Each structure stands twice: as structure tokens, then as C-alpha cells.
């Protein structure tokens, strides 16, 4: 057939084109480039830029190591990235997995144990892993916040939220994808029990404007004025007090109770620079860095010997600290999540 010659030529050309392009893209994406004096840190997106800059600067100065931060939209995405890269990890250090995610991480055996020198300054009730695979870094109370300019009638208890007056006024985060969302789910379980929480959510969903995938999205919608109640942290209003000089945004301690979220930092098992990673952990837990946490991250520092700004002392009058035993969470979390998923279906 007369076409065959030309056809083969065209095919060869096309394949050559494909190969060249693919190769070009691979090279330009910079895969496989690995420098020695470099430490990769994974964190979630809301980790403040100021802290990142400070850490990078100090660490470069002190140890001559460049820190490369990569952020993920929410903890869920960050965690799934870790699972995917389990065989061949890219990151050395992970900041921001909380005690609940730690259970899964322990199951997957992601982290290597390292007990930093600073461990002595961390209160014992914050240490969720006695082996220090994840070391507490900061903590905060997961609470609803409200916009005092938009909300006339402030609810006092969780049951009050079911009032039709709050219809379309609540923004929550998804427990399937975000860690404050997960903690809030645990809050409701701690309050209403394994049976009661489903009914509570079933009733609550009617008032919910959106269940955002991540805290940032939810808090963004809240500050943009899309809804007056949002799931956030007890320390969030301090941000507005400190930086915007406004007390417009207030924490909402319902029933005087709250669940704490403890975020940890840890070294991945496959890290190629474990010594340098250890140095980073020490740095992150050093008093000089921990002092920066409240005013930047708006969480409480893990170290107990750090002075706090008055804005924080006032921020959260939590009377009753909620807690579920970690073993129970590990055993039941999947079931609870499934129950939640059913509950928010109509």
C-alpha cells in the first residue's frame, strides 16, 4: 500500500515527539534532583508564613541547612500524600498531624521515635505518644466561633444550635478530610454518646450552610461574612484582637465544654537526613520558636514555660475538657465516621 511508508514515518515522528516532550517535562519538573543540605517539611496550608520564614532563616543560619516547606490543603490530603509516598518518602519532617491522625500513622508505621530534649518541658497530659514518634508541638481547643456583629442571639449549649434561628448560619469542616472537623465529631460523641451523636448531627445538618473540606476554607467563608458561626479554635479570636484590634469575633464555648486538639511534629522513617531532622525538631520545640506560636499560629505552645499574651489568657474559658480514650478512638473512628456520613444524608 502506498501509504504505508509515509504512515510509518508519521508514527515514528509522533512517538519521537511524545518521547521528547515527556522527557522534557520530566526534566523541567526537576524530578530526581536531590541536594544534601536540604530538609523537606510537610505541613498543612494554614501553617503561618511568618513561622515558615523564621524557621527557614534561623535554620539556615544555625546549621546551614535549607528548609523546603510544602503545604497541603488539609490534613487529610497531607496524610494521604504520606501514605502514597510511604515506600519512598520525599519529606523528612511532618508538622501538624494531631493525636487522632497519629493513631493511623502509628498503624502505618510512618514515623521513627525521637525524644527531644525539650520533652521535659511539655506537660504530661499533652504527650499522646509515650514513644515520641510524634512530639506535641502546639495545641488548641476546637470551638465554634461567632461574629458578634452578625449574630443577634448567641447560643449557650450544643442543643441551642438546633434552633431554626441558626438555619444556614453555621459553617463546619468535614471530619473526613480535616482534623478540626474530626475533633468536633469527637466532641459530639463525647457529649452525646455513641448513639446520641447521630441524632444530633441529623438535626444539626438542617442549620449548616456548608461543610467545608478544610479549616481554611471554612474560616475564609466566615471572615468573608458568608455565615456568622464557624468551627475553629478557641484561640482564633485572639488573631483579630491582636492584628485587627477588634473583638468582633468571639469564641463560643457551648455547655462550657471543649475538646483539645494536640498537633505533633515527627520524623519520617524513610528520611535520608535523620540527624538534621532531629535538629529541626529540637529547634521547633526550643523556647525561642515556641514563643512565636501563639501570635502566629494562634494555638497554645506545647511548652509550658512560655509566656502568653493576655489576649490568649482571656480567649477560652473552658470549664470542662472533653476526652475520649485513644484506644476507643482507634477502635471506633471508622465506624463513627461512617455513622456521621449516614447522619448528614437526609
Amino acid at each position: 500500500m502506498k501509504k504505508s511508508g509515509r504512515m510509518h514515518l508519521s508514527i515514528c515522528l509522533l512517538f519521537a515527539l511524545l518521547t521528547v516532550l515527556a522527557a522534557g517535562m520530566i526534566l523541567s519538573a526537576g524530578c530526581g534532583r536531590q541536594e544534601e543540605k536540604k530538609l523537606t517539611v510537610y505541613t498543612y496550608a494554614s501553617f503561618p508564613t511568618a513561622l515558615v520564614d523564621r524557621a527557614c532563616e534561623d535554620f539556615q543560619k544555625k546549621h546551614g541547612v535549607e528548609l523546603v516547606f510544602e503545604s497541603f490543603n488539609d490534613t487529610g490530603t497531607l496524610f494521604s500524600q504520606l501514605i502514597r509516598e510511604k515506600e519512598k518518602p520525599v519529606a523528612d519532617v511532618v508538622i501538624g498531624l494531631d493525636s487522632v491522625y497519629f493513631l493511623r500513622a502509628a498503624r502505618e508505621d510512618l514515623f521513627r521515635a525521637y525524644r527531644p530534649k525539650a520533652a521535659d518541658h511539655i506537660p504530661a497530659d499533652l504527650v499522646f505518644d509515650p514513644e515520641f514518634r510524634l512530639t506535641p508541638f502546639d495545641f488548641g481547643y476546637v470551638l465554634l466561633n461567632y461574629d458578634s456583629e452578625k449574630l443577634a442571639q448567641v447560643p449557650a449549649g450544643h442543643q441551642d444550635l438546633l434552633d431554626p434561628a441558626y438555619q444556614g448560619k453555621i459553617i463546619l469542616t468535614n471530619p473526613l478530610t480535616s482534623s478540626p472537623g474530626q475533633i468536633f465529631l469527637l466532641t459530639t460523641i463525647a457529649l452525646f454518646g455513641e448513639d446520641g451523636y447521630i441524632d444530633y448531627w441529623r438535626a444539626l445538618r438542617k442549620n449548616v450552610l456548608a461543610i467545608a473540606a478544610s479549616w481554611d476554607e471554612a474560616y475564609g467563608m466566615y471572615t468573608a461574612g458568608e455565615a456568622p458561626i464557624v468551627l475553629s479554635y478557641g484561640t482564633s479570636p485572639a488573631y483579630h484582637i491582636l492584628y485587627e484590634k477588634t473583638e468582633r469575633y468571639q469564641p463560643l464555648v457551648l455547655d462550657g465544654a471543649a475538646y483539645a486538639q494536640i498537633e505533633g511534629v515527627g520524623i519520617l522513617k524513610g528520611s535520608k537526613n535523620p540527624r538534621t531532622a532531629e535538629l529541626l525538631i529540637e529547634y521547633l520545640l526550643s523556647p525561642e520558636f515556641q514563643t512565636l506560636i501563639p501570635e502566629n499560629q494562634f494555638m497554645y505552645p506545647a511548652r509550658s514555660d512560655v509566656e502568653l499574651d493576655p489576649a490568649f489568657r482571656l480567649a477560652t474559658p473552658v470549664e470542662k475538657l472533653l476526652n475520649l480514650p485513644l484506644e476507643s478512638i482507634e477502635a471506633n473512628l471508622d465506624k463513627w465516621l461512617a455513622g456521621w456520613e449516614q447522619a448528614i444524608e437526609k
Partner: protein
Amino acid sequence: MKSGNRVKDGNYDDVRSRVFARARGEKRPPAGGLIRACREHSRPHAREKWHADRNPVYLLLLLLFYLPVLSLLVKVFFGAGFWQELTGFLRSKLFWNTLSFSCRQALYSAGFSLLLALPGAYFFGRFAFPGKRLLRSAMVLPFMLPGILVVLGMVVFYGNNGVLNHWLTLLFPDRGWRFTGLYGFWGIILAHVFYNFTFCLRLTGEAWERINPTLHEASALLGAGPFYTWRRITLPLMAPTLLYLFLLVFLYSFFSFTVVLVLGGYLYKTFEVLIYIEYSSRLRFARAALIAIVQLLLLAGLLYLQALSGRRRRREGLFAGTLPALKFRDYPGRTILFLFYLVFTGFFFFSPLAAVVARSFFSRGLSGGLPVLENYRLLLTDGFRFAVGRSFLSVITTSTGLAVTVSVVAVSLAYYLARLRRDRPWGKADLWLQLPLGVSFVTFSSGLFMLAGKVLPSVVLILWAQLFLAFPLIYSMLRTARRELGEPLLEAAALLGATPARILQTVELPLMRPALSTAAAYAAAFSLGDLAAVLMLGRGRVVTLSVAIYRLIGHYRFPQAIALGTIFILISLLLFLLMEGRSRPRLQDIFPRPEEAEEE
């Protein structure tokens, strides 16, 4: 069955190609001369099959397109407890709620898109007015925008605290009128209608225009009034187009991802969102695949319906060419209605984009002040790099690199195949290349990841997925354009003694340039707008413009997201000008209608 025609076709083409092979002085004349060649190929199918079905490029593409989906199927089918899982899922409330929501919102979206498009179709189909061409071209614009930008525009304009509500408060301070429906069912429909309405308008307008005007006159002369004529003649003749569009919008909405992900707030979800959450956040790959398969089955059902609806061909009433269009100055009443319609639709559909552009010049805290470029400056700072993961320059480079690569590869492959099949009627071989249009993109991406995620670098995976995304439309555009070009001109060149390479260079490519550049622009727009593939396959490492906007919204750096969105709109406009400046792409080339899909 029209195999009779095909036989003739095949023979004729073959004879002709041999004649011209000779005319071009090729070295190997067919053995036994023309007459024997004719006889040989009166056995019809052998030759034809070779053309498409056994071409290596064609097979390679099929492999590229279907292997990921197949691997997904295989993996799940042979996984442990498949049937149990499946029945469990099919019995769950989650499944039924998702199905009913997906169907309901898709029905509403399709219905409203068409209802809104029909009055406009009358004006665009029957009237001539200055600026019609430009308006009509501009109608593809929303379609080229990525979902994330549409959502952004929606939030900025229709949000609880958006422009519309500010205007309402300003205009009616005491009434307390507010639009609060963006997050939820009606918000999702609003976004879908925004997305699909303009291209429905364009296609229905063109369908209306192509109805032979003498049919209306014939009806009038038989004593029918205008409404009777519309009901009995116009509407039935447009029905295939309307049905096709209805199903197309239904499909797009049924598989909607970004819009539902952001505006649905997990209270409303499509299967795409479910798959994404299972896959990306919960890491339950098997379950994600299971849902993907359920969705594939639903899709197969829908496509079957569409195939049924497209079976009856009604081409005769359609009329290619110009018709005596009405002039607005003869119909003052309708002019007012038309202006009203334009203002109304323009307000609802273009203000979100305008709001994005306008807002990009006001930084937070400074709103109400003078327009500033603060947001654009912030794009170049470290804050951007951290929130997005890459510097602004790197985002732009990655996006353009991907877009250019996808468009070059997609267009050259598509054109190669279009050329190969230039004489063939539209057949099964084309259908196989068209089918990806309906396959859920998230499904494909997850299949692709399971298949090759561990072997290939992310960039190649993304390229692969975006090629899959862009190819069907590009192919059908070029296929139609190449077929319309026809052979006589090229044959004339051949008879004048030009070599094939010379013909390609001096006649074919210049003639095809408008179609090629339009196709390239579309491919680039697809690549730029794609969010799902980059999110799922990029492993957080490949950051394109869409991803950057998504992350900026996620980080609530809204002002920067808006600034980046404005840059995106600019790029889309440039692409749009590239296509429109050079040619007049007819949308029916891009979305072949069922009644044209089976021409003899």
C-alpha cells in the same frame, strides 16, 4: 443497513487513491492495474478496517484511553468481597441520596439552561444585527473557563456577602432582600446554568438559523399562524438539537466536580465528589473504584439513551447557508424584548466574571479605596509561594508548558487520525475516540493512578489524563474540518504535479490553519482549566494556575485568588481571540450532533 453505500464508497476511494498515486508518480503502481484493484476491493470491509482499526496510532490511543478504566474495572471486580461491597453501597442511603441529588440537579440545570437559551435562540437564529458574530463567539467563553474560576465568580457575586447582596442592600435598604442560596441546591444549579447556558444558546441559535426558512413560509401558506408553525415545524425540527443539548448538559452536570465540591459543602455531592473524597482524603482506593464503576454503569445507561435519541436522522430540514434574516428595525417590539433579554442574561452571567476582575483591584481592608495593584504584587511574594507551593513564575511556566504540550500532542495526533479517516463516513472507529467525552474524569484519573501511578512521573500522568480530556473534542473538530476540506483541491494540486509533502505544506495546512489553531486553543484551554487531574495525579507537586487558584481560595487568600483569576480570564481571552481572530469555528464542528454523527 447502509453497507451497500459503504462498498461503493470504499471502492471509489480506493480507485481514486490509486489514480492519484499514479498521478503523483509513485513508484509502486497497484499490481494488476486499476481494474483488478477495483475487483479486489469489491470485498468491502477488508480495506476499510485496515484504515482505522489497525492503525498503530489509533490503537495506541485506544490503549491510552481505555486501559486506565479497564484496569480499574479489573482491580475492583477481582478484589475481595466485591459483590458484598457493591450491594452494600447500592443499598446505602449515601448512594440513593447522591443519585437522586445528581439527577435532580442535572435535570434542573439542563432544563433551565435550555429554557433560558430558547428565547435567545430565536433572536440569534432569525435576526441579523451588528455585533452578532462577536456576541456569538463570546458565548464559548464561559465554557473555556475552569470550574474553579466560575465558582470564584459565583462566590464573589452571588455569595452571602457578595456584590449582589451589597447592591440589594443599597437599593432596598429596608426590605432586607438577600440572596442566600449560593451554598446548596440552587447555587449549584446557578453555577451549572452559568456554565452551560451560553453554549446552549449558541447551538440552539445555530440550529434555528439552519432551519430552511421556506418551511416556515410553506406552513404559513398552508394557513398556519406563527405559533402553530413554531410548535409544529420549528420545535420538532430543533428537537434533536434540544434533546442532544439537554443530555449533554445533563451529563456535564451529573459529573460536575469543582462546582459541587465547593458550593455543595459536602451536604450535596455527586459521585465525582464521592470518588474524590474516598480516593484523596480517606485513601479507600477500592471503594473509590467501586463508586467509579457504579458511575460508569450509570453513564453507560445515559449514553445508551442518548444513542437512542440520536438514531433518527433529520437532516433534510436543515439548511446550510444564509437565509434572509429579519432586521430589528422592522420589529420594534421584539427589539425591546431582545434588549431586555440581553441585559438580563448579561447581568446574571457576565457580572460574576466582571466582579472577579473588578475585585482584583481592591485589596482586603482597602475596599472602597482607590483601585490598586496590591493583589497582583502579592502574587510575587513568598506568601504566595507558601500558600500555593510554587512561585508565581513557576506556576505560569508549568501551566503554559503543560498547555502547549497537551495542545501540540493532541492536535497532531487528532489531525493525523482525521487525515487518515478523511474519506470515511463517521463510524464506530470515531465513536470509540469520542466516548471518553462521557467518561468521568475523576474515574479516569483514579484508574490511571492505579495503573501507572507508581511507574510514571506525575507530569507524564497529568499529560496523559489531559490528552484524554481534550482529545475527543479536538478530534471531532478536526475530523469535520478535514472532511469538509474535501479532496478536489488537493487532487487538483496533485494533478498539477505537486509532491505530497508540497501539497501538505502549501495547500492543506494553510487551508486547515483556522481549524488547527482553534483546536489548539481549545486543547490549551482544557489543559489550563483542568483541576481534577492535577489534584489527583500531581501528588501536590505539580501546580498549575487552576490548582493555584484552588489553593489560594483554600487558604483564604481570596484577593490573590481573584487577581490570579483575572490573569486566567486574560489568558482565556487571548486564547479565544486566537481562535476567533483566525476563523469562525462552528460549534457544531466541536460538538457533533447525533443527527450528523451518522451521515452516510
